[in-house]
């Protein structure tokens, strides 16, 4: 039976593509492609009924965002999702600093569900929808 929601641990971090994109320019297509995606475990995707390069909705207590799901190529990472640093990741990151100034960018709970009909917002659209500018 296909489950419609999956509880996961959210990690955010660097990828080489994100590095190349950010230096080319935050408005570049490379940056959009590199940061508006989410690495998932192949078996998790199968169980959730998500195909490679289709969209998912990631939800945390701090918000939700539509991202493109990509199968993690190097190893099995069951229960983990990985979103490159950028405005898409930060739309859902925890802002709890535990009183030391550092938000919790890694290792926080999240939920994933398929969203093939939803659109991944561009950075301009995302900023507009979140901050009205």
């Amino acid at each position: 039976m296909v489950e419609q929601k999956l509880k996961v641990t959210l990690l955010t971090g660097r990828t080489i593509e994100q590095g190349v994109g950010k230096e080319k320019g935050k408005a570049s297509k490379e940056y959009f492609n590199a940061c508006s995606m989410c690495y998932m475990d192949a078996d998790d995707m199968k169980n959730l009924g998500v195909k490679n390069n289709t969209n998912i909705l990631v939800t945390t207590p701090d918000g939700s965002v539509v991202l493109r799901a990509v199968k993690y190529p190097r190893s099995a990472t069951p229960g983990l999702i990985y979103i490159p640093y950028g405005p898409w990741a930060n739309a859902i990151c925890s802002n709890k600093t535990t009183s030391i100034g550092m938000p919790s960018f890694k290792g926080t709970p999240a939920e994933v569900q398929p969203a093939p009909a939803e659109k991944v917002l561009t950075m301009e659209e995302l900023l507009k929808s979140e901050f009205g500018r």
Partner: protein
Amino acid sequence: MSIIKSVTCPICGCLCDDIELTVEKNEVVKVRNGCAICESKFIGYKGHHRVKTPLMRKDGKLVPVSMDEAVHATAEILANANYPILYGWSSTSSEAQRVGVELTEEVGGIMDNTAVVCHGPSILGVQEVGIPTCTLGQIRHRADLIIYWGCDPWSAHPRHLERYTSFTEGRFENSEWKAFMQKLKAQAGQKKLESAARIEIGSTHPKPQTCTVPGMPQSMNKSGRKLIVVDVRKTMSAEMADYFIQVQPNKDYELMQALRVLVNDGELDVDSVAGVPVEYLKDVADALVNCEFGVIFFGMGLTQTAGKFRNIEIAIQLVRDLNSRTKFTIMPMRGHFNVTGANVVSAWQSGYPYGVDFSLGYPRYNPGETTCMDVLLREENDASLVIASDPGANFPKKAVENMIKHPLIVIDPHMNATSMLADIVFPSAFVGIEVEGTAYRMDHVPLPLKKVVEPPKGVLSDEEILTKILEEVKVIKSSSKKSTKKVEA
């Protein structure tokens, strides 16, 4: 056409200073020796999203204005604010950072740099227990055991392995590049054999099971440099490693404490720690103790997960324990090319490395209270100046929401997420491409950044823009003092 050699790359904390650039008609057209990110910056810096004139938000839209108008408006905002945040500083020169400290003191605000969301916890850990460290040159020539813990240099510091650790030819240690290439070839051959066997047996037959023997792989018994990667997922760097330890998320602290017990000849009464069998950990502890010169590089995998600065504290204590058995050092993998400089300049000017509060007229530092993220989340700020960073893209949503409730000024060469949300935007010249300056490498070695092309007409450096704002702030403040005196008289 001219070729400029020994250019320092202004991207990450590696500060590779062997870049060779070909410049034609005041444009960089070719990059040699750099990584993919380096090439993207040196070729892409002149892209169409470059800002070339100051912008101000009028009727909801950013429109071009003169430099004088933008400087005056900025100075008015900062001079009249009670608790402004001056944030960023990590992708600019130390010369600009020095003006920044003076400006922050003048306006009585908070000066915070990107370390707060990066290696701020590392600084806190170091303040607790100190740090046994060294320069990257020492590691290059002497280290025979390299550990990357919670970091993926292949993605974030692509030439770190090649210039400073496993794949570099040191005076006393050799490069492991050839051995790695042989390993890759052997793996590719193995895959071909397996694939051929599957075809012969038939596609319906299950994949042959590989035999897993507990303990360290053969490659850990080799002579020469050894590479261990500890991470929650198998990264590209982990694929290059002689040994990869997959730790469960948020369990790094436990794993390091377990290693401390084993290094100190203690016994563990459990079968596994943080998802890693104790038998494996015993072999790792042996490798740590038996090396001649070991080093731990660590990244956001420790600073941004549960425990945060306590993870760093315990990592340093592990290194301290190891130093009673052999020679061991530890170093944070600093991200922005001059975030180390931001900490150094802030510390030598104010006494504190980040999160410095000048609102009482003297510098004060209390992470969790005076750090910009906490000030934003408590909604205490009433203006912000962001320079050489992009919190609009890299801060959690709630913090950005509070930042844009009040005037936001951005100084950056590119139109980034924060510029798009800003009220005033200053275009600036690229440090290390269009302006020279000084930057500190991740091991605190200062290196000169070169100017290789002229900036676009009318585009000033960060240092020049900040100096103009500072002078204007001083004028506004002195005139308001005079008018107050007149009223009193």
